[in-house]
């Protein structure tokens, strides 16, 4: 009997010891470490317990630890606002994390300073990418107003779980090979999105909204109108013009363009609502349903426009830069309630985007995909000097003088020279614009297309240059800088003629000797630098020599004669703290997309999912 009891006790002890060890080995987290750290007791007990319970459920479901920290003001100051470092310390000290790689998310929230930080570790850092962390970080603090500090932390948990659910669903619908990549934490480059928190429409739904979103099958409706003006912002004539223009673009490019207005977005984000309209009404051409959809939401409380791009080709064209330009154009019309005009102008940019790859393209830019054969503008005439003063910098006399000089240099050195001024680079960078201008306007002499383009823009103190062939070989970085330097002073003083005249002189000298002359001020600067270096060296040498010429001085210290030193007592008494503040706003990031153009602020999303689960890009603005 006694032996049996001893065996039972021993078995019980072994099991009770082995279970936790097995738990560790199996990857379950250490329950001893708290999942809510609230040293300032900001939360009531009930809310605190709720978070702890949710954390445990979350961890068991997703095999990822999640820890909430409410940071007190003292703690915030002690860590000097570096919540990331604080998260690292907590993660290490608390030994949080699930599994061998200690997958975990640490959420820190300081209510007094309204500072939020989300940090992922281990496998969690591979699954939850930076865009998503940024999204959660932007969203969660917004819940404080209505739900308090508990709301901020709970929202972090919910958003994370929604994201992980979407990730899991996306895996389930993908072909097995891609699903495997995703489960390893790698996302394919395109076509796969992780959905934001889809917001189901509650209450009344728009007439076109399917009853069963989950079972929805994409279709194509050729007969669907390309203008749906539910908000009645267009006149009948405008509506007809827009419809006709849309079909023009569709026939020319094979990509769709849809304009949709409504008085509400039914509680959905405008980009999701616009995407749903496009997805659920059979729009788009080709297997990826290529096209753009423009929504005007005339909800008095949430007025704005949104452009949604669908399909990989369209989304590749609909970059942040292009969308900003297009939004800028539309904004100016929208604020003055010229909706019809604005949409028609916008459709021109759509056609340009589809055909030439940029929303605003110059006439000389060929359509994308068109075969372009390079040509010589001055075929049969030999090298020439040209002037194309679109910006109107020069008087007739100045233009003649510059043209004559350019022609002379051109003939002497066998190169084309073009002086080009313009107010618009059509949304391209000026460097890209100059290069394309040179290419598509047939500039350059001979097989190497030897030549130089000098370009000027209003209110710019920089002389832009593009060259090819023999000119390019001589236009070293040093020579380029010298030419820009020589021209900058003239351009700063709005002396455009003098600037281009100087540039031609420098070009001529460069073609003759291989280098651009240095200005006197440049030599003076070099002399000053040399003098400074000489002064430093001379001073250092003199100082070293002078140090050996020490004259006798009376001694003020007896340090060499100290036989013993003792610190008998010390006291450090804290008196008070003084505080000073300096206004220093940090650079704000655009949070996944955002830019400005035409005085408005655009929000750009490179990737999001509509209610159908399809991927889109979007850009839009409130007005």
């Amino acid at each position, binding site marked *: 009997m006694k032996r049996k009891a001893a065996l039972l006790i021993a078995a019980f002890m072994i099991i009770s010891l082995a279970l936790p060890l097995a738990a560790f080995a199996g990857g379950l987290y250490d329950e001893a470490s708290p999942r809510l750290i609230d040293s300032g007791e900001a939360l009531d007990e009930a809310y605190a317990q709720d978070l702890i319970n949710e954390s445990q459920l979350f961890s068991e479901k997703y095999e990822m630890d999640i820890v909430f920290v409410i940071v007190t003001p003292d703690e915030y100051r002690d860590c000097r*606002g570096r919540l990331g470092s604080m998260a690292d310390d907590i993660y290490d000290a608390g030994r949080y994390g699930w599994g061998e790689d200690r997958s975990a998310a640490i959420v820190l929230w300081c209510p007094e300073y309204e500072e939020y930080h989300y940090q992922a570790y281990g496998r969690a850092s591979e699954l939850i990418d930076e865009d998503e962390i940024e999204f959660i970080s932007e969203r969660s603090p917004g819940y404080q107003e209505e739900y308090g500090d508990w709301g901020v932390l709970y929202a972090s948990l919910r958003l994370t779980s929604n994201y992980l659910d979407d990730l899991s669903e996306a895996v389930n619908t993908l072909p097995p090979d891609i699903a495997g990549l995703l489960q390893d934490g790698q996302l394919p480059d395109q076509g796969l999105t992780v959905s934001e928190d889809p917001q189901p429409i509650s209450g009344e739904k728009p007439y076109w909204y399917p009853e069963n979103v989950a079972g929805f099958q994409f279709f194509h409706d050729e007969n669907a109108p390309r203008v749906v003006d539910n908000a009645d912002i267009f006149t009948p004539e405008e509506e007809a013009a827009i419809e006709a223009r849309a079909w023009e673009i569709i026939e020319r490019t094979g990509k769709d363009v849809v304009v949709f207005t409504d008085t509400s977005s039914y509680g959905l984000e405008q980009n999701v609502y616009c995407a749903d309209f496009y997805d659920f009404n059979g729009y788009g051409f080709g297997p990826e349903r290529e096209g753009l959809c423009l929504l005007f939401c005339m909800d008095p409380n949430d007025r704005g426009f949104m452009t949604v791009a669908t399909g990989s080709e369209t989304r590749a064209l609909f970059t942040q830069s292009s969308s900003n330009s297009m939004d800028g154009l539309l904004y100016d019309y929208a604020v003055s309630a010229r909706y019809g005009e604005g949409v028609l102008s916008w459709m021109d940019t759509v056609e340009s985007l589809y055909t030439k790859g940029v929303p605003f393209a110059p006439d000389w830019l060929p359509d994308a995909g068109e075969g372009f054969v390079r040509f010589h503008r001055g075929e049969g005439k030999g090298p020439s000097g040209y002037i194309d003063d679109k910006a109107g910098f020069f008087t007739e006399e100045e233009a003649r003088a510059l043209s004559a000089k350019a022609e002379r240099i051109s003939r002497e050195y066998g190169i084309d020279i073009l002086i080009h001024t313009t107010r618009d680079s059509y949304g391209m960078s000026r460097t890209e614009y100059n290069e394309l201008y040179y290419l598509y306007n047939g500039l350059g002499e001979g097989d190497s297309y030897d030549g130089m383009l000098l370009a000027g823009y209003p209110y710019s103190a920089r002389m832009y240059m593009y060259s090819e062939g023999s000119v390019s070989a001589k236009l070293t970085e040093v020579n380029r800088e010298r030419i820009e330097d020589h021209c900058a002073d003239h351009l700063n003083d709005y002396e455009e003629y003098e600037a281009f005249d100087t540039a031609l002189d420098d070009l001529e000298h460069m073609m003759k000797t291989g280098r651009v002359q240095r200005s006197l001020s440049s030599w003076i600067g070099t002399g000053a630098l040399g003098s400074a270096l*000489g002064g430093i060296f001379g001073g250092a040498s003199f100082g070293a020599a002078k140090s050996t010429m020490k004259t006798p001085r009376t001694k*003020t210290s007896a340090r060499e004669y100290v036989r013993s030193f003792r610190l008998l007592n010390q006291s450090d*008494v804290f008196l008070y703290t003084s505080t*000073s503040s300096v206004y220093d706003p940090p650079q704000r990031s655009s949070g996944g997309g955002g830019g400005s153009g035409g005085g408005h602020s655009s929000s750009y999303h490179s990737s999001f999912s509509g209610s159908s689960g399809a991927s889109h890009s979007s850009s839009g603005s409130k007005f």
Partner: protein
Amino acid sequence: MSKKDVLEQKCPSCGAPMRYDAASGKLVCDWCGTVLDIEDQESPSESPQQEPEEKVSGFDYEAIKNQVIDKDALELPIYHCKSCGAELISAWEQVSLTCPYCRNNIVLTDKLAGSLRPDGIVPFNISSDELPGAVTRFYKNKKLLPKGFFSRASMGNVTGLYVPFWVFEGRLEGNVNFGATKSISYRQGDYRVTDTKHYSLSREVSLDFDQLPVDASERLDDALMDSLEPFDLRAVKDFDPAYLAGFAADRFDAPASNVEARAKQRMLNTAYASARNQCAGYDSVNERGGNIMAQVKARYLLLPVYIFDIIEGRKNYSLAVNGQSGKVVGELPNDRAYNLKYFLLRAGAVLGAFMLYSVARYFMGA
């Protein structure tokens, strides 16, 4: 004038004056070559008229000063050279001199009697023959020495002099107070906030000092004498007038307040600096005074120094050499024009090289 007693070291073989030889540490007769150990010498045949008074322990200048001959006295003492009978008048601080007539070395024993007797002496370790080499080494590598200085300069008369020093030991104890700050910066919304914490610090320290020499001769430059430090006081010997043979010697004449004050100030400066070093971990520390008590005592030693001038044209540059270690200190010529030329040559060379380089790069198209 009253005649005073003197002491002369005579060669027992030939009766010529003997001198203390720094190289051998013995008394040497330059006439017959006799060499005698100082420790073997008997007491002087003529003892001073004054009875040696009880030594005053510690630095009790009040007791000692009564022994000082008043330098403003109308009557100056007359000394009688025993070799040639010449009557000699010395400066009131001199305790040893050479008869200008017969070159006999004379020690003025009345100025070394009783409480005026030094507690010890550090004999010369460097002979005067070694001085030219020491001076050459001193001037070597002094790049700002005007060109031709060596060829134009000459060494003046060298005086081997025992300089009176008070060598202090003491203890300093007390409090030093400081104000200190620590700052942290952090971001709060659009503001950068700096919190500065202010502290009051107190450090109670105790320092023991030993063998701090302060020269007690008014006529000698304090800066020059301070610069000769350190002296190795382990070589201190019991005072014997024989060490003075062949050298001049002075006795203390600097007022007590000066000497003690200088010593205490050096010790205090060190005490405050040591206390400040105990205030680590703060962004700024400012001293706010303190209360340190000093207990000091001193002994009177004679330390060996060579003094001479380097004469260059119309200018004299005073040099001193530590007669124990050979350390040379002194004035150095300061030729502003030469200094400027030195600086400009070097600066100009770098400027020239840089411009040459820039021009070369320009023509190479860089």
